[in-house]
């Protein structure tokens, strides 16, 4: 008996992993914690408790392009990004940090966290230069691994998020589930 492939069914090659298939929040949290201790200071801890981000936020991120393609995004209040930058620079920090100093330092933190997240994912993958500004949009809510943390009591969100929209016919996401 022969069957005709109408294309209606998904092919094996259509299967694209989402980030939650590849890495768990505990691994991302461990990577971030190590980065914080090494970059920000030995006593600097990220507490896994959600906090409400203010309106005035800034994000830094790197893109990962490979078997999984997306971004590793850090988001926090602008004031917290400045505080993080000062902590990173320690005694080499200039008396006045300008926007470029903060963008550079906050971007480097994303670069370090993102580089180590990339290493935990199937490769080979390429890593972009860090960017700072408004975070890339979440294209597929099912392809997100998000951590909400506190640093010195201030909220810091880390999102490992896919860059691609859901495949047609893929499992419904929470956003379009019908209860």
């Amino acid at each position: 008996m022969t069957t005709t492939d109408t294309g209606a069914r998904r092919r094996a090659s259509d299967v694209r992993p989402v980030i939650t298939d590849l890495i768990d929040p505990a691994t991302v949290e461990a990577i971030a914690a190590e980065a914080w201790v090494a970059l920000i200071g030995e006593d600097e801890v990220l507490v896994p408790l959600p906090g409400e981000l203010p309106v005035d936020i800034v994000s830094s991120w790197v893109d990962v392009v490979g078997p999984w393609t997306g971004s590793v995004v850090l988001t926090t209040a602008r004031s917290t990004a400045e505080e993080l930058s000062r902590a990173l620079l320690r005694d080499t920090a200039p008396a006045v940090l300008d926007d470029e100093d903060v963008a550079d330092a906050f971007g480097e933190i994303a670069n370090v966290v993102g580089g180590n997240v990339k290493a935990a994912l199937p490769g080979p993958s390429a890593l972009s230069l860090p960017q700072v500004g408004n975070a890339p949009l979440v294209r597929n809510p099912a392809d997100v691994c998000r951590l909400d943390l506190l640093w010195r009591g201030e909220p810091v969100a880390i999102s490992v998020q896919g860059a691609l929209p859901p495949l047609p016919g893929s499992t419904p996401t929470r956003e379009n589930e019908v209860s």
Partner: protein
Amino acid sequence: MRALVIDDSRAMRRIVTGILAGFGYEVRDAEHGRAALDVLGEGWLPDLATIDWNMPVMDGLQFVSAVRANPAWRSMTMMMVTSESEHTQIVRALAAGAHEYVIKPFTADAIRDKLALLGLLPQEVSL
């Protein structure tokens, strides 16, 4: 001893420069591989170069290859200091001619240990 710190991040250049200066190095820095080659072209030859991987204009791997292509710069030790931590990337860098590889994030102690292994830690710096 002299060191050339190559990183597109100003913050990271400040941090690495601070660590190496603390070990007694005379340090210059460059924001990408092309700028670093310009420093070498001036005749300022360091004992050590710390090299980020992902940089605009000329990345760290291209810089390592360019240095290896010039016999006059052969005495310089090249240490990658980068967030590129995939095994294949480490192998690529070492195959291109880098001597050591430090993954960000790092501590001053990690840099000191690598320099000791390379015989590039000034004697007055204790382990």
